[in-house]
Every structure is written in C-alpha cells, then in structure tokens.
C-alpha cells in the first residue's frame, strides 16, 4: 500500500529520519512506536506528503508520490486522512462544518455534503452532536469528530499521530476500538504513531520501532512483543 525506501530527513544538523524503509501492507493497522523525539511525527509528515524527504523514495500503490508537486500533490493528500493528539479541529466551525470541510475543499455540492456529513457522524457515533459547538464536546467526542473529518473524502489510508495520548484510558479504549472497526468496515489502511505500547498491543498487526531517527526493528506485533531484538523495543516493553 505505502512503501518507503531509505527515506531521510534532516533539520539543521539533526537527522530526524534516517534511511527508513517500510512496507505498510494494505488493509491493516500498522504501528510506529518510539520514544519522544524519535522522529515519529516527522516520519508521519513525510508519509502524509506534508514534507519532502531529502533522499529516498515513497510509493503509494504503484505510484511514486514523494516527487509530486502542485495540484497533483494536493490531490494525493486528499486520499489520505489524518488525526492528531490535540484533535486540531477548526474552532470557528461547529461539528458538522468541521466534517464538511474536506468536502467543501473538494468542491462537492451542498446537498451531497450534508448527506455525507450525516453518514460520517453516524459512522463515528457522534450524530447527536451534529449542531454542537466544539467547546461543548469532551476529548473523546472531539476525536470522533476529527475521525469523521479525516474520513470525509474517503481516503485509502488514515494516519493517527498520538491520537489517544490526550485521552483517559477508558476513552482511549473506545477510540481504539472505533478505529479498528472502521478499518475493517471501510477496508482502509491505518498507520498509528504512538509512544504507548498498549496502543500497539490493542490494534496493530505490524509494528516498526524507531530510535533516534532510524528503524530499530520491525515485524509482526506479536513477534516483537514476544522476542524484542533491539534495545529500543526492550526498553519500551519494559516501560509498559
């Protein structure tokens, strides 16, 4: 689905991402774990085409995407959804208008947008808040709205950057199970970035462990949990 070949990214004299190669299989939940500052968010921004790698190549399906620019780049980004730790919703818009934003951007007619927003809020189980203002929502509810917005343009792939790190354990579980159910139901690919082992354990089939910008190890989540090879993986398991 998404294939990275020796992707690197440097900020000033910091090698934030160092020759990372990954293969995210279609229709799965792929985890990326690492300590704070390991380069997880940077890697996600590269995968999401928000930043250009200094070197390496990236393919979405058969198409090389890291070299795209202009209109083509925007259209490719629209095939990807993203959710964040702090939700990053638009406070000037209510719930429904946040979800409709990607559809407005894509130029859908109003009637179609309204229908689709209804479906999406249904899908993320937050229909009762359709007309609510953001400040009336809890963190978990906000993340549901953010997921609805991320899925609005029917992306093939959903990126989650620490999507549950601002939530309490119970809400975390409900959001994780929502993501898992949506992945199955919509047949999409999900990439989850986290520093919490529990998140990987709960929903990921495969996992990549990052340490200081490079790939420490990767493989089936079960295997990495049972027999961690790298010191980074052992440390993360120990902390959990």
């Amino acid at each position, binding site marked *: 689905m998404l294939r990275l070949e020796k992707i690197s990214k440097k900020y000033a004299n910091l090698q934030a991402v160092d020759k990372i190669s990954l293969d995210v299989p279609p229709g799965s939940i792929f985890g990326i774990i690492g300590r704070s500052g390991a380069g997880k968010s940077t890697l996600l921004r590269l995968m*999401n085409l*928000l930043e250009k790698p200094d070197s390496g190549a990236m393919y979405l399906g058969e198409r090389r995407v890291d070299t795209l620019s202009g209109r083509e780049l*925007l*259209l*490719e*980004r*629209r095939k*990807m*959804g*993203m959710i*964040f730790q*702090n*939700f*990053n*919703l*638009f*406070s*000037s*818009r209510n719930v429904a208008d946040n979800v409709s*934003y*990607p559809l*407005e*951007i894509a130029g859908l007619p109003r009637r179609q947008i309204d229908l689709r927003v209804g479906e999406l809020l249904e899908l993320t189980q937050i229909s009762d808040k359709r007309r609510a*203002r*953001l*400040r009336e929502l809890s963190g978990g509810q906000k993340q549901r709205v953010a997921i609805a*917005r991320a899925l609005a*343009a029917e992306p093939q792939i959903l*990126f989650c950057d620490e999507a549950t790190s601002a939530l309490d354990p119970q809400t975390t579980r409900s959001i994780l199970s929502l993501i898992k159910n949506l992945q199955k139901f919509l047949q999409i690919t999900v990439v989850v970035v986290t520093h919490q082992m529990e998140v990987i354990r709960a929903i990921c089939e495969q996992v990549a462990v990052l340490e200081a910008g490079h790939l420490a190890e990767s493989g089936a989540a079960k295997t990495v949990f049972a027999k961690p090879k790298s010191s980074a993986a052992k440390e993360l398991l120990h902390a959990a």
Partner: protein
Amino acid sequence: MPPNLHEILGLLPQATLETIYMTFASTFLACLLGLPLGIYLFVTSPAGLRPQSAVYNILSRLVNLFRSFPFIILMILLMPLSRLLIHTSIGPAAVVIPLSIGAAPFVARVVEAALEEVDKGCLLAAQAIGSTDWQIVRKVLLPEALPALVSGLALTIITIIGYTAMAGAIGGGGLGDLAIRFGYYRFRQDITLAAVVVILTLVELVQLGGTLLSRGLLNKR
C-alpha cells in the same frame, strides 16, 4: 445660552462629521491595502504556510520603516499624491490618501499578529486535508482569526482617529483642525477642550464596540 457654548455647538458637528468621514474612509482604504499585505506577511513568515525568508525580510523591513516614520512628515511627503489623485491637497478628502497609506503598514502588522495567533495544528490539519493555500486563508485562517481581527480593526480605527487629529495641522479639517485653529492660534481653550472630549468619546465608543463584537464572536464558538 452663553455665547461661547453657542459658538462651540455651531462648530463641533461639522468638525465631528469630518473626523468621522476621514476616519472611516481612511480605515477602509488602509484595510484594503493592509489586509492583503498582512496576509502575505504571515504566509511568507518563517512559521507561515509558505515560508520565503527573502521576501518576508524585505517586506517586513519596509513595513517597519514606514511605521517608524514620524507620521506628520509622512503626511507631508504624501500630499503631492493627493494633488495628483484628487486635484487638491487641503480638506478632509485630501488627507484620506496619505492617512490610508500611512496606516496600511499598521494594519498589515495587526493582521499578521492576529493570524499568528491561529492554532498551528489547525493549519497542519487543513494542509493534510489537501487544501490550497488560498482555501486555507479563506476558509480557516481568516475565520479562526476573526475575533482577533475585529479587535485589531478597533485598534486601527482608534489609531487613525489619532492620525486625523494630526492631519488637522496640515489643513485636513475635522476636530484636530478645530483644536489647532481655534485653541492653539486663538487661545480658545474651551474649544480645544470640547474637541478633545468628542475625540475621546469617539475612541471610547470604538473601543467598546470592538470589545463587545470580538467577545460576542468568541462566545459563539
């Protein structure tokens, strides 16, 4: 009615209307110039949507240069422009042109500051969704910054009221002109006082309106 009061009441309405006219016409034109400039400054700034340090640094210095220029001198320098554009360099209409150009860099900074306050996460989300820069500006940046922009507008109007008073010194008309012509040259402190009271009232009203509107917008969220 005492003769003094009668005279003051005869002079004030005209001068007040002139001040209001100069203020609003200049604010409108200053925003017309300053809003796009402020947006452009933000977009090209280091933390903006499309950082361009060379363009940003040049524009930013120009804006600072204009802003640190003594306003009264800027007005005098710009007066020939009024002569060129509206064929006169005295009266309220004539000072609107230097006023707007003089206030535009101020507006640009106010706009830039308001946009800088918008949550960077929102912008990241809008970019991830595949918005064009123009869509982000129009559908995210400006709506998110609206309460701050409204406060900034009030600040701009107040600053321009101050400028119009100075414009009185070079024949602009309005309350500043009244204060200078009567109060300063003819020692009529009662007229100066009356002009000052009206100016302060205008400033207070704009401040109040701006605060209420901005707060109202925030409360709607």
